[in-house]
């Protein structure tokens, strides 16, 4: 038998196996969460307040809390990250300083999320006086996803061909006109896709909001950005570690987990849809 063919067969086999294992892991998690969570999910579960000391009722405050925190993080981090990326790739002189900033940003991405939580506690909660609130938690989450947004945006900007910029500048466009009318429209899909994927991840984080935004139980829904909130990831954690009725709490935790996973997958789906829509339009 041909040795090369055998090698190829084994090579492909290994790669295929790796792919299958990854998929299997993903589906196992989904299946596991879905099977246990689906039992408690119904309309009431999604739209009602918790009752009887967390052992019954719905998880509406947690869903809303996660939603508000995510929105707050987006509103803060998306404009800031995109602006920083534009500055770094388009305006800043590509020298030592920019290199140092880039290294800084990359390191920021590697910082454990609990450290961001402590930072948020020190800066937003205490120093800025926002207290334990949606605002503090949202800003902390925002900082957590900032490196992802900056990197995605920088990459999206850098793949816009130089020839587009040259064409625009040669027509007498200013740098800003070139960026706003030629570069950004061609980079926006990449920026959004990368950023949204980052946001999806942030929505599921527990540690950054632990000291900055969440409470185990609140009697009413949050009324302003200065209210403390319940949030899905923390809700799950709390249900599993606190309280005295695990047999009632655990199913609720799985229900909340299923909602959270669906939420994150939904956000990812949005990113994919945006990317495909833009990709169909551009051909360069």
């Amino acid at each position, binding site marked *: 038998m041909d040795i090369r063919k055998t090698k190829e067969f084994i090579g492909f086999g290994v790669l295929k196996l790796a792919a299958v294992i990854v998929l299997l892991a993903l589906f196992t998690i989904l299946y596991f969460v879905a099977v246990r969570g689906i039992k408690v999910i119904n309309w009431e579960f999604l739209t009602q307040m918790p009752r009887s000391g967390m052992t019954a009722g719905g998880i509406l405050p947690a869903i809303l809390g996660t939603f508000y925190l995510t929105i707050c993080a987006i509103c803060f981090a998306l404009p800031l990250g995109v602006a920083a990326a534009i500055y770094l790739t388009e305006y800043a002189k*590509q020298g030592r300083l920019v290199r140092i900033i880039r290294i800084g940003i990359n390191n920021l991405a590697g910082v454990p999320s609990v450290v961001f939580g402590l930072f948020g506690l020190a800066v937003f909660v205490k120093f800025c006086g926002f207290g334990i609130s949606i605002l503090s938690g949202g800003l902390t989450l925002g900082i957590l996803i900032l490196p992802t947004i900056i990197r995605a945006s920088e990459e999206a900007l850098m793949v816009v*061909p*130089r*020839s*587009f*910029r*040259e*064409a*625009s*500048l*040669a*027509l*007498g*466009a*200013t740098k800003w*006109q070139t960026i706003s*009318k*030629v570069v950004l429209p*061609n980079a926006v899909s990449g920026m959004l896709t990368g950023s949204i994927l980052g946001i999806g991840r942030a929505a599921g984080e527990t540690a950054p909001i632990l000291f900055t935004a969440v409470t185990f139980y609140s009697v009413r829904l949050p009324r302003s950005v200065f209210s403390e909130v319940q949030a899905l990831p923390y809700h799950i954690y709390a249900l599993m570690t606190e309280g005295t009725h695990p047999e009632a709490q655990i199913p609720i935790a799985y229900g909340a987990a299923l909602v959270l996973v669906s939420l994150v997958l939904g956000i990812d789906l949005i990113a994919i849809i945006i990317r495909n829509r833009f990709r169909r*339009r*551009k*051909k*360069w």
Partner: protein
Amino acid sequence: MVIEIQNSKFKIKNEKEEKIEKDIRISIRDLNIWYANTRAVKDVSLDIEKNKVTAIIGPSGCGKSTLIRAVNRMNDIIPGVKVKGEILLDGENIYDEDVDVVTIRRMVGMVFQRSNPFPKSIFENVAYGLKINGFLRKKEIAERIEQSLKDAALWDEVKDRLGDSALDLSGGQQQRLCIARALAVEPEVVLFDEPCSALDPVATARIEELIQELKEKYTIVIVTHNMQQAARISDFCAFLMLGELIEFDKTDKIFTTPSKKVTEDYITGRFG
């Protein structure tokens, strides 16, 4: 006037001095350009006449693109480029500190070696330059677009599909679209960097024809690899080698009786 001069050798001699004083549009003076540490253009000086076609020829990598891009300061956007010397546009040095680059580029348009339409519609491609330069009236924009597409010999092919993506055009059509886009803002000088390098003979012929017509209105500088093309369309010709200007003269002269041996060798293909 032009024809008269070309027909009579006697007159050329008499009028040469005087003409140079009168019709110089761009004057390159001791120009040196560095990429990081390599000098791509070395002490080049040459004058470009108004309403004439000036060709720049020379072997690959000799600095033709670098030189032509210096004329509208396109090299500025490449990191690490250093320029020394002067380029006078109507007597004013475009490399002076207080010169506004945007104004220069507005006056000196450019068509690039590889066609680079925006991923927008045909209409939007040509309208872009107008819009950024403050043309807002719809009617005026439409008129200008029609005129420049006609000037670029593209109108008949696209007039019914102006809303289509420019990227759906053929390579030759895209290059003509880029020419139309450059003409729409009515520059006074147009720089062509090997505009035909990616085109078939038919499209090339059209663009050559076009350049002949354009020189009525514009001053033209064209980089080309193609000797025949330079001979056909240019009035003046500059031969560059390893960043140095070897010879610069009337095209007739360069192609019939070049004064340097290397020029002759290059033109006759006995070279490199």
